[in-house]
């Protein structure tokens, strides 16, 4: 199940765990990323909590936790090479995996068609 937020994150949800990243649209707005800071594995966040930070040449931006949950895995490859997020934002440029506190919360997020409409 692929979901999106109005803050330009995507979530690929499988068995109550969401793989989270930022959308192609977000990356186009940010430009070349030069730094990524990821949360600790085991950290818990509420929806809209500051889970990660990305920095472009120009500015820093927060990446919000899209739903309540616990971080089970992060992607060290984007810390080593932030340009991976630019080149493949919805694939190899994923940020973290989030074990959802309540799997049904995902129903309230945008589906792909609604997100496309939002960013059209």
């Amino acid at each position, binding site marked *: 199940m692929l979901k999106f937020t109005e803050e330009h994150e995507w979530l690929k949800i499988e068995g109550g765990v969401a793989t989270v990243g930022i959308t192609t649209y977000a990356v186009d707005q940010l*430009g*070349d990323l030069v730094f990524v800071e990821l949360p600790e594995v085991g950290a818990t966040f509420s929806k809209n909590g500051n889970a990660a930070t990305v920095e472009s040449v120009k500015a820093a931006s927060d990446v919000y936790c899209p739903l309540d949950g616990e971080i089970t895995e992060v992607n060290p490859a984007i810390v080593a090479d932030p340009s991976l997020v630019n080149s493949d934002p919805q694939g190899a440029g994923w940020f973290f995996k989030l074990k959802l506190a309540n799997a049904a919360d995902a129903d309230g997020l945008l589906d792909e068609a609604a997100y496309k409409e939002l960013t059209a």
Partner: protein
Amino acid sequence: MDDTAALKKTPLHALHLSLGARMVPFAGYDMPVQYPAGVMKEHLHTRAEAGLFDVSHMGQVIVKAKSGSYEDAALALESLVPVDILGLAEGRQRYGFFTDDTGCILDDLMITHLDDHLFIVVNASCKEADLAHLQAHIGDRCDITLLNRALIALQGPRAVEVLAELWADVAAMKFMDVRHCRLHDVSCLVSRSGYSGEDGFEISIPVDKAEDVTMRLLEHPDVQAIGLGARDSLRLEAGLCLYGNDIDTTTSPVEAALEWAMQKARRGNGARAGGFPGSGRILSELENGAARRRVGLKPEGKAPVRGHAKLYADAEGKIEIGEVTSGGFGPSVEGPVAMGYVPVSHAAAGTLVYAEVRGKYLPTTVSALPFVTPTYKR
């Protein structure tokens, strides 16, 4: 109402849009922050080949003595800047700044001795205030005229070859030389200067020919349009101050490490010592130093440290010692770079300080400026 409706446009505005620029408000103008290539590639292209920047938002001003003599214009301007203007040879340019009565900086500017008058270029954000300042203090002796012309910068190691294809004489110009040139049969004013740390030129063009001359330069395979984003990262790596960030009405020239711009003639025992606003403080600081100083800062990690980050002497953030005034990622340095003010006790290159970023205290080394080696043709 559209937010951008009130913004002014440079003569190259339509060209920026046609090149796919992302436009942002800057100093009251709708300006290109980047083109489709993006800040990183634009920055690296400028250092490797040649970048073309629209800086038409800046104020181009003629200061001409009513007497018609250069000397009178020079002496009038010397009453507002701690710079040797009388000793500036014809066709030469010099960096300077307007000071206020407290010895701080009202604006920084480029000053050229052109024929029998002065040609100055001031920051867009200070343009109106600078004109009023000039009018109020030397308007009785000089005619102050804001020119309606475009200004572009062509910067980078290929700039000289590209421009010499249009006007061969530019190749013989030295850093800070200024010449009248005809580019594609358009009368332009060319200076061998810029704000990127690279060799290059700034070219003042009549408004009605600006797009034509610019497009012809962009047709050259080595030339690429560069936005304000890369302009900022280039000047930061070059250790150059951005007015409003690194220097303003709370910083003195000596605090800002700009002693090099104040020549002997205007200092303590010089032929025309003092005689500019705030000279008491500035002459004293030239003699004795200031309590704090602008320095280069190199964060140890990968995280950029940006303007307004607080600086500490200790890793726990207990002893605050200063603030970052400009900072970001340096594409040529391949890491974060910044500038800021620290007490002279912490201003020596190699001193370890700590910058606060998102609640962490990041080890940051005071570094000599610039971060890249300038390639000016002296």
